[in-house]
């Protein structure tokens, strides 16, 4: 005993013992009635010890005798006939008979393994039948209730009116079988239990099983004696009698103690079933003993069934209307997603809803967060995350999606959900659960790189329990006594990490949105491919256009220039010096226009033409570019010096040569030093300044072309890269179109690089630029 006590107190005794208590075979009945078990021949095989009170014969005299002997002759015959006919007891019940000793009783029978069970209830007041009127009235009230809440109020009000109990409650189970009082009708002065929660252990599993089978139970008084069955075991089954279907079944002493602790003297409960599952109870309490006769119990049971049906109906209507609303939201969202340039903006409600009017609403903001009840949403599309409402940080969202992808991508799951992130996340991601408890995520790309995630806060944050649960006590003699909690004072508990569960409708809606997004994104990709093809074609056309335009511009230009020169050649004398000078100006302007046309053509090519990607040793590119600027180099008697080692980069060789040619040419052109010196080199990673490091793209090498020229004022550092932008008079420093640096920048940026200039005015300039470094 010591050992077992020790073990028992180590566990949650109340729950464990309650769960194990075999309440369907108590071996006793409530003593306000008597019970007989008869065999097929009608002989009594088992009887409750208190039978003498009702029929004037003790159990020993009744056992193994025909049961008809318990009643007055005529009624004994009626009973034998009922037993013999194989009739349905549910149609006969209750059978009003007079016992051998002249007591009027109601006999309630049912067949089960081990014989027919006859339960006798005294019927002093059995002549009381509820008038049809109150029952009909109650049913009308239930039918009239427009909402689920009104229906709940109606059932407790009507059951109280019909039965006269002090308190009638509608008690609803949650998914963990904790109960909450969701409606209550109580007489004044006894307080309210409305809103209180009760732990699942208050109504243990085997009790719930019984409640689902036998929908009404009555305890007329908690003080009643119980009467043992004789013999203890049913001789036909050799087992204790299964009292699951009995009305007199005696109640667990734990339950009686529980009621006593609450101050309740009598109780009745009616089961509410939803598609066969126990949804809740209509629980009736009375603070004095209260017997409810069979007919009234049957009427109450009927009301319970009407409530169950009406409730299911209302809930379906409600679900249908919620689903209709959600579907309308979805339709709007889909319409706008299909039209939108930027899907994320639509999903996050950042775009105005111009369809508002069509739905009889003001145009306004509307997002995927409105599809169903959620506190926040993260839309992660095309490498961009948009958060709305209460969500984890974007870093956390990415971490969450990585984690989801790891666990679900291969399995092909595209929708995952939880109502307690805290319970499922690994420790390293635990901080995410601080912000949100519930998560419903759909993958929009196969690998979870694009996804929409809804979040819910923890809910409820505070639970008001109907009293604090207490541990069981071990008595001094070593026996274990279960003491259900004595106090039912409201007791609050903080519950964390749990969100309201996602409903089937929520999940369906999220799945629906996912299908739409996948389709739209696929269409977008196809459209993009089509646009790309269009772009390639129009690029080719533009190219042809550029050449034709340049030809058509140049031909007359050449004519003008040449003819001006012919005039000078042929009529030099007549023209005089002034005339010749003016014609020379025409020729020079023509050449200038020609340079512009060439620059425009080159710039347009640099911007549109596809770049090749090959390994280009800068040393070789530099040599080629020096050939291109050879004329200017020798004209200015300048030189190009290489500083340190030159790297190998990855890019379009021809364009890289252009970059060097342009920069060297500029360095020579805008240079008054003797001799002009151009230095070319690269900046080793170790010697990059902080500023350079910040600007330099990943895997790029920083190159420079430095000159000892005239330099650039800092305010022009950006302007020099603008097209046709010159800082000097057009005939100073050899003229030029001013497109060279624009082309340089275009080439560098198309390689993913950066270019900028630093300069000490009057001392020289250094152009820094980057290219991808060859692997």
């Amino acid at each position, binding site marked *: 005993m010591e050992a077992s006590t020790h073990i028992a107190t180590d566990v949650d005794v109340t729950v464990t013992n309650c769960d194990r208590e075999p309440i369907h075979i108590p071996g006793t009945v409530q003593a306000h009635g008597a019970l007989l078990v008869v065999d097929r021949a009608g002989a009594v095989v088992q009887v409750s010890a208190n039978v003498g009170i009702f029929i004037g014969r003790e159990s020993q005299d009744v056992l193994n005798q025909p049961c008809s002997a318990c009643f007055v002759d005529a009624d004994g015959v009626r009973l034998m006939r009922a037993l013999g006919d194989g009739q349905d007891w549910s149609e006969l019940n209750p059978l009003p008979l007079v016992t051998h000793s002249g007591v009027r009783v109601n006999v309630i029978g049912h067949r089960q393994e081990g014989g027919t069970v006859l339960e006798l209830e005294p019927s002093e007041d059995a002549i009381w039948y509820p008038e049809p009127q109150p029952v009909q009235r109650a049913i009308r009230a239930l039918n009239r209730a427009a909402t689920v809440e009104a229906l709940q109020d109606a059932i407790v009000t009507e059951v109280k009116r019909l039965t006269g109990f002090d308190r009638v409650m509608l008690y609803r189970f949650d998914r963990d079988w904790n109960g909450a009082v969701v409606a209550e009708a109580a007489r004044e002065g006894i307080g309210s239990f409305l809103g209180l929660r009760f732990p699942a252990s208050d109504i243990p599993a085997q009790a719930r099983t019984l409640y689902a089978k036998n929908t009404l139970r009555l305890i007329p008084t908690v003080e009643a004696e119980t009467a043992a069955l004789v013999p203890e075991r049913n001789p036909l089954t050799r087992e204790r009698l299964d009292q699951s279907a009995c009305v007199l079944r005696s109640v667990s002493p734990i339950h009686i103690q529980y009621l006593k602790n609450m101050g309740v003297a009598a109780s009745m409960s009616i089961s509410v079933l939803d598609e066969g599952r126990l949804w809740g109870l209509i629980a009736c309490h009375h603070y004095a003993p209260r017997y409810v006769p069979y007919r009234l119990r049957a009427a109450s049971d009927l009301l319970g069934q009407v409530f169950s049906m009406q409730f299911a109906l209302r809930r379906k209507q409600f679900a249908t209307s919620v689903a209709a609303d959600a579907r309308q939201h979805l339709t709007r969202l889909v319409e706008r997603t299909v039209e939108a340039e930027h899907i994320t903006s639509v999903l996050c409600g950042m775009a105005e809803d111009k369809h508002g009017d069509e739905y009889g609403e003001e145009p306004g903001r509307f997002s995927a967060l409105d599809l169903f009840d959620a506190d926040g949403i993260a839309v992660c599309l095309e490498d961009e995350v948009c958060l709305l409402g209460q969500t984890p940080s974007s870093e956390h969202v990415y971490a969450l999606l990585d984690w989801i992808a790891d666990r679900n991508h291969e399995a092909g799951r595209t929708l995952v959900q939880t109502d307690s992130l805290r319970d499922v996340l690994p420790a390293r991601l635990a901080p995410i659960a601080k912000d949100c408890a519930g998560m419903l995520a759909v993958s929009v790309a196969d690998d979870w790189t694009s996804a929409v995630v809804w979040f819910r806060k923890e809910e409820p944050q505070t639970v008001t329990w109907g009293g604090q649960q207490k541990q069981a006590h071990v008595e001094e003699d070593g026996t274990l006594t279960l003491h259900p909690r004595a106090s039912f004072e409201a007791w609050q508990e903080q519950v964390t990490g749990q969100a309201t569960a996602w409903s089937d409708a929520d999940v369906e809606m999220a799945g629906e949105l996912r299908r739409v997004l996948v389709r739209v994104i696929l269409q977008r990709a196809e459209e993009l491919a089509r646009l790309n093809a269009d772009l390639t074609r129009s690029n080719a056309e533009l*190219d042809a256009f550029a*050449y*034709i335009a*340049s*030809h058509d511009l*140049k*031909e*007359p*230009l*050449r*004519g003008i*220039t*040449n*003819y001006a*020169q*012919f005039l000078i050649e042929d009529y030099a004398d007549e023209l005089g010096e002034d005339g010749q000078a003016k014609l020379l100006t025409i*020729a020079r302007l*023509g*050449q200038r226009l*020609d340079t512009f046309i*060439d620059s425009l*053509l080159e710039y347009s090519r640099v911007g549109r033409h596809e770049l090749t990607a090959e390994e280009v040793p800068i040393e070789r590119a530099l040599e080629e570019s020096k050939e291109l600027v050879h004329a200017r180099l020798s004209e200015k008697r300048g030189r190009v010096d290489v500083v340190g080692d030159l790297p190998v980069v990855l890019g379009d060789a021809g364009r890289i040569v252009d970059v060097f040619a342009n920069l060297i040419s500029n360095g020579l052109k805008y240079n008054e030093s003797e001799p002009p010196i151009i230095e070319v080199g690269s900046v080793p990673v170790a010697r990059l300044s902080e500023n350079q490091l910040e600007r330099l793209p990943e895997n790029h090498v920083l190159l420079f072309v430095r000159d000892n020229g005239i330099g650039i004022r800092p305010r022009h550092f950006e302007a020099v890269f603008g097209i046709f932008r010159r800082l000097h008079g057009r005939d100073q420093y050899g003229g030029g179109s001013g497109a060279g640096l624009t082309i340089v920048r275009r080439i560098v940026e198309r390689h993913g690089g950066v270019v900028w200039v630093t300069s000490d005015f009057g001392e020289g300039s250094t152009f820094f630029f980057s290219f991808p470094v060859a692997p």
Partner: protein
Amino acid sequence: MPDLHPPLVYVEDSPEDYEAVRRSLRAIGFTGELHHYATGDDVLDYYAALLDAKKPLPRLLVLDLNLPGTDGRDVLVELRAHEQLRDLPVIILTTSQNPTDISHCQQLNVLSYLTKPVDLAELRTKLRHILAFIEAGDPPPSFA
């Protein structure tokens, strides 16, 4: 050196460009005949007539690319497809700097691809390449 240079065929639709080339050729000392055709169709007819009459072909064709009707590119393709004109020496003198044109013409075995400069002096420099070829009977050194 002969007194007269052999004749030169020049296809050019722009009268001003023709005039510039004509003047420049004379200025650098070209003494031969200059046969001028303004369209591709005309020059193809001219060669067809010479072949029919079994007359000798002029040594060199200077061809513009952008021409009305059959343009210079098509003229070149037709010449190279013709058994007896396949090896006719051709120099391109054009405004086009389009790399597609340049590589296309290279593949069709032209002697030289010259772009028309706006500057008259530069034009004369380029025409000296042509004259050198006429005088030496050798291809000019390279593409310019």
